[in-house]
């Protein structure tokens, strides 16, 4: 287990390093001087030169990358252009909002997707199965920002059931959850479809297994066989799927944060682009990438911990 974890961790480090290299290349090797981009057209040559030295742009390229690389690993993602606050601090301030949003999305997708997929598998071939199948494909296909806008339109603007803007009053969990419902639905709805399909497929496979026949031969109630004996195996692959899903949910979260005017990393990057706050963009992209790789890693390890077969084969 430890060996496996270390191997996966090593791979994660390599991938993050490569991501850093690419980010660096994008910023420094694509035409356009970051200093002039940051300062805008009205800056004087002297101002630009000063900023260039401050940003280390006068050094050779490989040296710049090395500085960037070492700095990033030690948590130094540069300083925000306007307030000069460390980028890492700024990003970490916003991160909890995004994580709450993704957790909400996962809750929706698990709470709806697993029962729907299980139901479709048990009623295989029926009308219910077909309807669940078509709906799953439909919610996967429709982009999350369309869902976000329509949810805003229907539930917040037209029906006025739920709040439309912000993350809720700080220190008031009830209000915060109320503000989380619509954005997290927009983030998680597509994943209801993915999970329903995945659970259905793996349920069908598990229900054919010979240990299920054994359980039936022992006269166990069909409900217990379905939920305790089959589903507990069939949901294992969804954990890995969610690991991948979180990456896509990060993308959806950007839209949800903008549409519902919520604080969060996505909104931070978006605003940073509009204000040309360069280091914040790189920093936030890097943090989310690390987060993504890390969550994938955790998902893999959780599968290991849940499945006794995998657990001991490490």
């Amino acid at each position, binding site marked *: 287990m430890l060996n496996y974890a270390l191997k996966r961790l090593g791979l994660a480090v390599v991938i993050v390093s490569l991501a850093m290299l*690419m980010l660096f290349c*994008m910023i420094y090797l694509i035409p356009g001087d970051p200093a002039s981009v940051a300062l805008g057209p009205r800056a004087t040559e002297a101002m630009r030169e000063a900023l260039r030295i401050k940003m280390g742009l006068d050094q050779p390229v490989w040296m710049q990358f090395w500085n960037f690389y070492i700095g990033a690993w030690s948590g130094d993602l540069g300083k925000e252009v306007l307030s000069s606050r460390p980028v890492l601090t700024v990003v970490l301030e916003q991160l909890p909002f995004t994580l709450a949003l993704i957790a909400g999305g996962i809750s929706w997708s698990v709470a709806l997707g697993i029962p729907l997929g299980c139901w479709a598998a048990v009623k295989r071939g029926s009308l219910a199965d077909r309807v669940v199948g078509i709906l799953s494909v*439909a919610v996967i296909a429709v982009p999350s920002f369309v869902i976000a806008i329509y949810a805003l339109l229907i539930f917040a603007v037209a029906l006025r059931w739920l709040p439309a803007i912000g993350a809720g009053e700080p220190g008031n969990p009830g209000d915060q959850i109320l503000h989380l419902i619509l954005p997290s639905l927009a983030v998680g709805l597509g994943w209801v479809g993915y999970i329903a399909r995945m659970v259905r497929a793996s349920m069908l496979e598990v229900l054919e297994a010979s240990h299920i026949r054994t359980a039936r031969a022992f006269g166990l109630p069909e409900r217990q066989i379905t939920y305790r004996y089959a589903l507990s195996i069939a949901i294992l692959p969804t954990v890995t799927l969610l690991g991948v899903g979180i990456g896509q949910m990060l993308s959806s979260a*950007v*839209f949800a944060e903008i549409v519902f005017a919520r604080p969060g990393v996505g909104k931070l990057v978006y605003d940073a682009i509009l204000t040309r706050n360069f280091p914040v963009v790189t920093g936030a992209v890097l943090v989310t990438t690390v987060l*993504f790789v890390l969550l994938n890693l955790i998902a893999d390890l959780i599968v290991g911990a849940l499945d006794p077969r995998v657990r001991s084969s490490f």
Partner: protein
Amino acid sequence: MSEAVSSPPARQSGPGRALRRLLREPLGVFAILLVALVVFGAIFADLLTQYDPTRINPRERFSPPGADHLLGTDQLGRDLFARVLHGGRIALYVALVSTAISLAIGIVLGLIAGYGPRWLDNLMILVFDAVKSFPTVMLALALVTLVGPSLTAVMVVVILVNVPGYARIIRTQTIALKTSEFVTAAQSMGASSARILRVHVLPNVIGPLVILASMDIPVVIAIEAGMSFLGLGVRPPTPSWGSILNDGFSNIRETAWIAVAGGLPIIVTTLGFTFLGETLRDVLDPRLKGRG
């Protein structure tokens, strides 16, 4: 997916037979209707409406749908029906061009990784994984920061998102074919690597890949609309479904019609292409079942 294609000759299935089977599926017929509606609207946009999608008419701001304006007008009085039709052109253009480019690049990289030396293969796989480890929107945001919003930026994002997947599929199948008898035979007869790849490997790997790529079209359309929605894609006043949706979002307390008009074509198109792809895949190639 790894063993999708394992044996020559390239799978042969009559297009006529496939089409008949597709038409037997109610969902397939529904999908064809949706896609046809979108394609028809985009091609004949100029004939279907006399309005100019970019002409501003302040006196007719926020008109609700009616006989004059089928889908109403936006905050600048532009006809939404005309904007939706012309937006379809942009969406389909981006989808077709960038998918084609992604396929071309993916095939070349995949062949190189699969047929080339081991170290190069490992390196490329690592790079593909790293590219995929960026969340799509973050990739788009980072890129647009540097090159500015444009249709080209949208296409670059699409290509970056799609290429690793295509290349991996081609690579896996190339490796599977590399050791097969007919490739070994060609090698023993002194055929060059390039010729082996072109004549023996490519025809066998390309079929399933094209199906998969066509199934990615709704994703591409979503990326274009999404980036235009964020103001990172098509520049105003050019109509795009995403920018119409953004107009609707900005004026959502004024009128719901703009947002509805922007979202509807996105829903119709993504559903149409997705259902079409799903049914096509089931009809043509059951081996691909279960992907995604």
